[in-house]
């Protein structure tokens, strides 16, 4: 198995899911409590990566990161290189690609918190922010874990976006899914199978963990 590709992928998945916790919680908070009339449009935009083929996202990310776009030129003027074909570029693509997989479980679990608890907290003099931190977040643990694990697993299995913006550089952008693809294309089925099996087992473990944790939260939580 290609260990370098494996650890690169794990690193990417960890960074992306950590970023999605940081970005996803405020977005989910806003989605849950905002009364804005056009909120549904934002919800639709966030859900887009679920329906769009990765090639569409990959194409626009490549165009947006390239040296012909303002963003690409701005980045190039700061760092001296373009974002495409870099680990940072993959990070941006992956965060966008996995955004709904984090935000939706977060928002669902925030919305599921009993509104009576929020009113009680407010009546005890807690600010909305304090209520969110002390009441909503702890009660949404299952949703947070689900969102984190799903974006981790989703990034682990990402292929199309990486194929389009990665450039297949060993140790930088050659993720495990790309490595498997290369081995299959070159007819090295044994190597492909070896790596694919590892990915299969890891993905299964992550998802089992999610469902296992959720099950405990569900059976123990309400009666605690």
């Amino acid at each position, binding site marked *: 198995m290609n260990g370098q590709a494996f650890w690169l992928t794990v690193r990417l998945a960890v960074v992306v899911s950590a970023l999605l916790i940081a970005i996803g919680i405020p977005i989910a908070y806003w989605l849950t409590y905002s009364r804005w009339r056009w909120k549904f449009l934002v919800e639709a935009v966030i859900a887009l990566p679920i329906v769009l083929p990765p090639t569409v996202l990959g194409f626009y990310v490549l165009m947006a990161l390239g040296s012909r776009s303002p963003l690409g030129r701005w980045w190039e003027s700061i760092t001296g290189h*373009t974002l495409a074909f870099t680990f940072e570029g993959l990070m941006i693509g992956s965060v966008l690609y996995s955004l709904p997989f984090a935000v939706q479980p977060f928002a669902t679990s925030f919305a599921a918190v009993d509104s009576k608890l929020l009113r009680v907290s407010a009546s005890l003099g807690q600010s909305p922010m304090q209520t969110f931190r002390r009441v909503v977040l702890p009660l949404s643990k299952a949703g947070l874990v689900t969102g984190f694990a799903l974006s981790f697993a989703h990034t682990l299995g990402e292929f199309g976006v990486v194929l389009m913006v990665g*450039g297949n*550089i060993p140790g930088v952008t050659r993720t495990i899914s790309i490595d498997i693809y290369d081995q299959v*294309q070159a*007819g090295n089925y044994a190597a492909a199978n070896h790596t694919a099996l590892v990915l299969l087992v890891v993905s299964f473990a992550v998802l089992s963990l999610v469902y296992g944790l959720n099950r405990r939260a569900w059976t123990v939580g309400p009666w605690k």
Partner: protein
Amino acid sequence: MFLRTSLLAVLLFSICVSAQEITVAAAADLSTALPEIVATYTKHTGQTVKLSFGSSGNLTNQIHNGAPFDVFFSADETYPVQLIEKSLALKGSLYRYAVGRLVLWVPNELPLDVQKLGMQALLDPSIKKIAIANPLHAPYGRAAEAALKHFGVYDQIAPKLVLGENISQAAQFVESGNAQAGLIALSHALSPALKDKGHYWTVPLDAYPTLNQAAVVLSKSRHPEAARKFLDFVRGPDGTSLLKNYGFSLPTEKH
């Protein structure tokens, strides 16, 4: 009743048409030339041809796994020969249709005289990323690697290499400005999409193993006669002149 007969007629007609339609798997460097050849072929004969592009290694792998292609245009000869050895292609149908040329392409924005500098241009600090095709399954990628080693710059520029899934993606990487230089197919450098955007240096033929591009009819083809006819057309005057327009030289010519 009339409706039913006409429906039946339409159905029969479509069966007849699809019976003649062949599917061609082709190396990505043909992605501009072959559609034109097919358009001319269809105009002359009324036969339709479906095209499927990829790296030659990728397509070979698909053929190994039963892809329903009638003809395979490879960017080198080893893949078709491999298929013949495995009885997946018809031995008598193998022929070299062109010699592919590798070029070093840079966009016009870069003030680099590639004609004068040749491969040494890649050492220029303004070049951050160099696009080539994936050597693992694309003949142009192997040619690029060989040429880089031939000119003794491979070790220095290896960290700058980005690999396209096939030679078309390598061309797209450099065309979109995401890579500043690319070792791509001459056919792409001459294509409408790239022609006016950059300039190129043709890598001399002795710098890499010749890209003897070979075509073959596949054993699983359900229309081997139609497949052979199409191959004959590509070999004929119309096909060869279109291939030449896109920078391919013919195997019999002196280069």
